[in-house]
């Protein structure tokens, strides 16, 4: 059969689109739908495609060739993001049916597909995959959250986001159903056997016609009069409430409230029964919110409860990852919850250890100190204490060490492995007075051998987690002053930081190990963390987080905020890839946790990762320039 011209051109379109997310995994009919209807246009360099003043966008744009720059105004700050082939925009505005939030400008001569807003709406309806892509991933890709969300706000956002989970993902079991001619008795028997209080009534092709619930039965005016030998069709609730699997948990909650029901039937794209959603399923979804986990931690009285809380933290983090929340908020979440957990463990330990009268603080080092914990973190902690005048035999230190051993063990029980390098508060070397800490730091600064530099990279990112915060503040102030006055030390740190280069290839995109992977921690996140630490010491910035260090020191160094924003975005993108690679089943600090096979990324993510490494390179050239290396 001869292929028609529209078919040939549509195939040319789909051959291109299928290399990019979400078209690489979208249903075949949905892909054909897009390829048939998307018209190709040309936009000369510098031309504005969309801006907030143009009203509701009338098209979905998909870049075929060229690049588009997105100018975002967030909190009075202007930032850029460059979109390349395969990128779709403005998904957020189309979904919200509101004017574009950003300005989109062709950065070079570009060929761009456009699909009408109506067709976009149709696509959302026919393609659950596309729907999922829109609701989940776009916020992450385009949002690149520049806002420093306050914890309270982020908490609310997280709880709301949970409710944006598609109901299809909440279904727990294969759907239970009976045909309309089943006797009511048999239907009730099946419900009892499965332990469910609602069963769907379907034709053989799984098209739902009704449902039966205990509630319904009991609410009948004359239950006794009903003959259980009658077919279930006689007593079921006809025309049951149904929702497509792609509908959101929100929609389900709303629908239940509106209809006054406790159960909804969920259907697939063909209208077939996919499962039964209960009100209880929705409650469970909300239960695992930040506030609940936090309350659980604060009221825990034993280690078993805290172990459960630790598990919930990981579950919450994973569901947030799945919902595409930005890496910055996510790592702060994890850190905030882990802080609460550690504080609770300390509080419980203090009931067993009498430290009354001792002035001390529990310190967190490394990623925990920077508020950048991922799901894969072992313990890095220490103690700072003031030795009482009367204490001449180190008894206070011995008491603290016994207490620390308990805390370290309890943390291990909650899933934070003991530190292999023994960077733990129970190590007598790390339970020190302010004078001793200053002496320790001072010796690293004055004699920066490789070990000293390595130590500096862990211990200089300290923060007080429990106890007298001013002990930490004074140490920080002293450290900053000392490091600021010692250019030779900072230069050594810079040399050290430059020993690992971003894995960008000259010929290929990425330089990978023999097994095709690259290490997102060693050759990715570390590059940003190390450079930020040096900048912070150089400019006397007291923040211990990488992003804050970069932002605050850039301001002092006169680096434009837009440039810093791009660097911070790069860092967060790498962090989010690390988070995505970690999952519930791997142990903390499992060896595979930070490795990534770049060839498993879609083109858009590869593009962003490349850009992130370029930002790391930029940061390193800045170091080179500053220290003339």
């Amino acid at each position, binding site marked *: 059969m*001869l*292929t*028609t*011209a*529209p078919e*040939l*051109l*549509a*195939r*040319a*379109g789909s*051959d291109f689109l299928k290399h990019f997310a979400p078209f690489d995994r979208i249903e075949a009919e949905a892909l054909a739908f897009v*390829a*048939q*209807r*998307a*018209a*190709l*246009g*040309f*936009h*000369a360099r510098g*031309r504005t495609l969309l801006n907030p003043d143009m009203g509701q966008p009338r098209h979905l744009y998909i870049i075929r*060739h*060229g690049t588009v720059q997105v100018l975002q105004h967030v909190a009075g700050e202007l930032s850029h993001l460059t979109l390349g082939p395969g990128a779709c925009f403005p998904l957020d505005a189309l979904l919200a049916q509101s004017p574009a939030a950003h300005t989109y400008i062709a950065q070079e*001569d570009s*060929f761009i597909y*456009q699909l009408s807003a109506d067709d976009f709406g149709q696509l959302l309806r026919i393609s659950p995959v596309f729907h999922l892509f829109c609701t989940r991933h776009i916020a992450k890709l385009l949002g690149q959250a520049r806002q420093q969300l306050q914890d309270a706000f982020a908490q609310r956002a997280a709880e709301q986001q949970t409710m944006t989970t598609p109901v299809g993902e909440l279904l727990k079991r294969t759907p239970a159903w009976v045909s309309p001619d089943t006797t009511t008795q048999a239907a009730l028997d099946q419900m009892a056997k499965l332990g469910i209080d609602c069963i769907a009534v379907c034709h053989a092709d799984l098209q739902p016609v009704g449902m039966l619930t205990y509630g319904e039965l009991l609410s009948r005016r004359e239950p006794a009069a009903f003959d259980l030998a009658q077919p279930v069709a006689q007593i079921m609730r006809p025309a049951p409430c149904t929702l497509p699997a792609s509908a959101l948990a929100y929609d389900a909650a709303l629908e239940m409230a509106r209809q006054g029901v406790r159960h909804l039937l969920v259907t697939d794209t063909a209208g077939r029964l996919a499962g039964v959603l209960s009100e209880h399923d929705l409650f469970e979804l909300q239960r695992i919110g930040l506030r609940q986990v936090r309350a659980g931690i604060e009221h825990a009285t034993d280690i078993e409860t805290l172990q459960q809380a630790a598990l919930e933290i990981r579950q919450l983090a994973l569901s947030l990852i799945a919902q595409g929340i930005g890496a910055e908020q996510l790592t702060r979440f994890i850190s905030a919850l882990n802080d609460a957990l550690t504080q609770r463990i300390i509080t419980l330990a203090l009931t067993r250890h009498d430290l009354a009268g001792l002035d001390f603080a529990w310190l967190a080092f490394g990623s925990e100190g920077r508020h950048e914990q991922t799901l894969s973190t072992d313990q890095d902690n220490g103690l700072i204490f003031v030795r009482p005048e009367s204490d001449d035999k180190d008894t206070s230190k011995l008491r603290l060490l016994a207490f620390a051993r308990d805390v370290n063990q309890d943390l291990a029980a909650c899933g934070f492995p003991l530190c292999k390098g023994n960077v733990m508060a129970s190590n007598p070397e790390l339970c020190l007075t302010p004078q001793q800490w200053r002496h320790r730091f001072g010796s690293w600064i004055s004699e920066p051998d490789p070990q000293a530099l390595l130590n500096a990279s862990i211990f200089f990112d300290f923060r007080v987690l429990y106890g007298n915060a001013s002990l930490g503040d004074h140490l920080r102030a002293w450290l900053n002053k000392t490091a600021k006055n010692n250019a030779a030390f900072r230069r050594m740190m810079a040399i050290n930081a430059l020993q690992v280069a971003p894995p960008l290839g000259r010929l290929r995109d990425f330089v990978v190990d023999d097994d095709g992977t690259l290490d997102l921690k060693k050759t990715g996140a570390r590059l940003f963390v190390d450079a930020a630490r040096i900048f912070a010491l150089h400019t006397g910035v007291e923040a211990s987080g990488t992003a804050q260090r970069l932002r605050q020191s850039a301001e002092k160094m006169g680096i434009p905020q837009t440039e810093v924003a791009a660097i911070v975005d790069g860092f967060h993108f790498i962090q989010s890839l690390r988070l995505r690679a970690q999952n519930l089943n791997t142990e903390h600090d499992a060896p595979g946790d930070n490795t990534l096979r770049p060839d498993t990324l879609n083109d858009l993510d590869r593009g962003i990762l490349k850009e992130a490494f370029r930002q790391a390179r930029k940061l390193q050239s800045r170091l080179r320039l500053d220290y003339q290396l």
Partner: protein
Amino acid sequence: MNWLDRLRSPRSEASTSAPAIRDTLLRWQALPPPDLDRPHFDARYVVINTAATGLDLERDRVLAIGAIIIDAGMIDPRQSIYVPVDENPADTLVEVLHFCGKLPRVVFNAGFNRMALERLWAQWLKIEPEALWLDLFWLLPAVFRPELDGPTRLAQWMTIFGIDTFQRHHALGDAWAIAQLFIALQGHATRLGAATARALAELERTRRQFTTPA
């Protein structure tokens, strides 16, 4: 002799007098002439291209015709045709004519494509459809490479713009590449002040005079 006389002429072949074909030709004839002064963003064009056994008008035979409408600077897959040219192509040719209407016709290398199509129409439909032809062979260098030693071949222009197609030397495959070149040209020509079909025609005429020895 106008074209209707030709249709009535006893020498015309059977196929041209078939009622359906005659009907379509009459309707085509009744179309209003195109407005050549509409700006590109509001105008329609048709990109038309042939695949032939070679490039010798005397010896080679057209095998297929592909055409794509450019509407407001956009290429919509649904507005395209691709037809083979067989032994008795009157039906096919009238279909192409109907598809093109009286829109300005965009080709790459009119020297072959325009001539071949006009010959076919004259031979099988006995008409010489009046239309504005625009030739990217001249227009692309006029807009993008004002110097005289620029590229001349379609493949070279495709490389410059990073354009690809599903099949080279295929009537529709190349038409699609030409259509992409044309929308790029529209975008840039508008900036140079050549924002209408008439202005493009003028630009092409100047370029020909400028570069072709008298």
